[in-house]
């Protein structure tokens, strides 16, 4: 007869390396780089990760920052000129921003970092990867600007009115129900703060490039991007078309592409959970399929 000892069970609970408590804590900072000052948010713990924004500057320590900070020490700078909506005279090209962000890493004592760039920030990230590949551990391009191929030319953002920009930026329309801290909550894409800041970014980009969201010569330089690269794209992006994702994927040697269904130019806002699963899997070396991607 089997004998057992009721109540003498053992119980164990493994701890996790990353936690929400640490990931939710962040501090605002300011780095003086020559005559320019770069404000930034920093949170999380671990190896550094530089997160460059796109048309809209970060509006706070948002869900995407928290998700990345579960695995990394995240630095989210505001590009100088982006808060005021007016470019500083020291900045005359995308490469200037790239050099500035490398200098930012120096000031913050970041030797080598993972680099995530969204939209215009992706264009800067590409330039950084070309200028100083030894400083970049892994590269993540999210609906990145930068390409202007003849068959899929970059859009001219300066020609877009509010309605056209809104239509191009988002896959969803009106109010979208997303996951909140207390169930599903509506996110007003058109009337919310995000789109207002996108309009500010449109002005800055127009001032910097005349409104063109890429450069013809970029495609031929992609063979020199040497680090592991993830290309993440909203399938319904009409600002930087999804064909650009596949061009990046076919020209960057150590790259893979993840297309997020039902997202436009801002997958981290429209599909934040999917976005984070894709990016964090890449950062942590997991190779798991993610629902809602292909």
């Amino acid at each position: 007869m089997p004998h057992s000892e009721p109540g003498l069970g053992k119980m164990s609970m493994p701890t996790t390396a990353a936690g929400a408590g640490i990931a939710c804590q962040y501090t605002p900072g300011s780095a003086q780089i020559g005559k320019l000052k770069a404000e930034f948010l920093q949170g999380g713990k671990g190896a550094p990760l530089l997160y460059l924004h796109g048309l809209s500057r970060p509006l706070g320590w948002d869900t995407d920052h928290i998700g990345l900070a579960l695995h990394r020490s995240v630095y989210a700078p505001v590009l100088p000129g982006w808060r005021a909506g007016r470019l500083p005279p020291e900045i005359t090209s995308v490469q200037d921003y790239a050099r500035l962000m490398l200098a930012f890493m120096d000031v913050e004592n970041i030797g080598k970092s993972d680099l995530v760039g969204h939209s215009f920030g992706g264009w800067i990230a590409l330039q950084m990867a070309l200028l100083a590949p030894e400083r970049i551990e892994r590269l993540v391009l999210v609906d990145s600007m930068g390409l202007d191929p003849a068959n899929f030319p970059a859009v001219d953002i300066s020609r877009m009115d509010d309605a056209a920009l809104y239509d191009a930026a988002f896959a969803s329309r009106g109010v979208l129900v997303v996951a909140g801290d207390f169930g599903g909550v509506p996110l007003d894409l058109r009337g919310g703060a995000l789109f207002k800041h996108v309009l500010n970014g449109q002005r800055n980009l127009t001032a910097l490039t005349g409104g063109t969201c890429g450069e013809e010569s970029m495609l031929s330089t992609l063979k020199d991007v040497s680090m592991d690269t993830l290309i993440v794209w909203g399938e319904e992006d009409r600002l930087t078309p999804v064909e650009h994702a596949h061009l990046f994927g076919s020209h960057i040697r150590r790259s893979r592409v993840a297309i997020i269904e039902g997202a436009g130019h801002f997958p981290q806002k429209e599909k934040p959970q999917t976005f984070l699963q894709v990016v964090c899997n890449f950062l942590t070396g997991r190779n798991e399929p993610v629902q809602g991607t292909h």
Partner: protein
Amino acid sequence: MLDCLSGGRFIPGMVRGLPAEWVSYNMDPFTARKRFAEAYHIIHRALTQELVDYDGEFWNIARASIWPKPVQNPFPPFWMPAGSLESIRFAAEHHLVACQTLQPTIVLRQCFDEYRRIATEEFGWHPGFGNFAGLRFMHLGDDHRTAIDEGLEMFSYLMRSLGRPVLNPAPLPGFNTDQSYKHRHANPDDVFSSSEARHNLKSPEVDQAAKFRDAGLMLSGNAKAVAEWLAEDATAAGYGNLIVTFRVGNSTHRQALKSQELFAKHVMPILRKINADGPAGPSNGAAAEPIEVRSAPAALPFYQDSNYLLNRDAVELVGISRNARNGAVTLSWEMQVAKIADDGSPIQIIVPGPAADHRGCAIQLRLVTSDGAELTDDARVMLEASGPDDVDRQIMFEGIYRQFTEAADHTVAAQRRGVAKNDYSIRLLVSLPSTAAEPDLEHDESTFTIKCFKHLLTLSA
């Protein structure tokens, strides 16, 4: 223990925790759903099985046992909040009651509709109103206007005090997927994110009490107004259970008692008539869970965790009885579970029924007549237990003797779980026509063995 203390009225509520709690404990929120599922299965097993082994991704438990077992058989009804598709599917799969907290009526409706659809289309059962619950914060008073003003202050206090520390800088990722709210249609009155609705809540120009009420946050007023609103809410949302929090924010004990009194007297009689399930009642999962089923595949082993044998040598055996009535004779081995010990130590003898991983406790029976011949195949056999004065009668096996003679080693499985507590009787009965040759239960070759589980709680430790 709570189920025993409350006489079988315990309702376990299973929650993943608020995001703020995952922040406080510094846990990875991407693991929340998996942890919840593991915890549910462990607790469920602990309530329904004698010994629990669990080897999961997050929890490893060996030989755990809880005592005493719940009064509700086979287990208390589980409730859980279910707003996301994943939670709704989990609740529907396991027949759990789905709760919605502090949400407008339309959101409750959308979630419960999705639960019904999934239960019907994916799991083949039809939920009743009792499978749904709404939660409302409430304050009632004799004077309508005064009660509304008091309710506003109570809820405002709650938001100022308890609400603040749980705010994260942004919605925590990982709790849900982007597909979690596909069933939800955007509702501009949802105060948790709609800037217009939030503005209206703060605006002195709008009727704040009505906004709080319609947002599902705080219902206050006199009994008549509260009853009318709740009747509409329950009918439109489709819930059959209502959870009420009377103690809100800085409300006093006296106010809460007054609210309860008014609610019980004037509101409950109205609500009882709404969304009442039929006699069958809601499904509490007993049918869905593979814990108690009438027949289990013969390929499964017998119950493996037995720690006790009920047989002719067991201390519980008190005698043999014979009754002749209406042309039939019934003989039985009579067993008795001891009364509760002087030191308060209780005992339970459990005869496990079929479960997902076994086909029930093994019952071996051989019966011969006084001349050593095998008993006739069509004699009826029953294993039953009951409390003093025949209360709580449970039948663990009911069949004919042929089932034993045709089974390997004369051994069959218990058909249903039975729990014999202190002072309960257990009987193994054999019935046959008075004209048939009776078995001799005292014959050396007439034997029985029930491989059961004896739960003994010693307080000496």
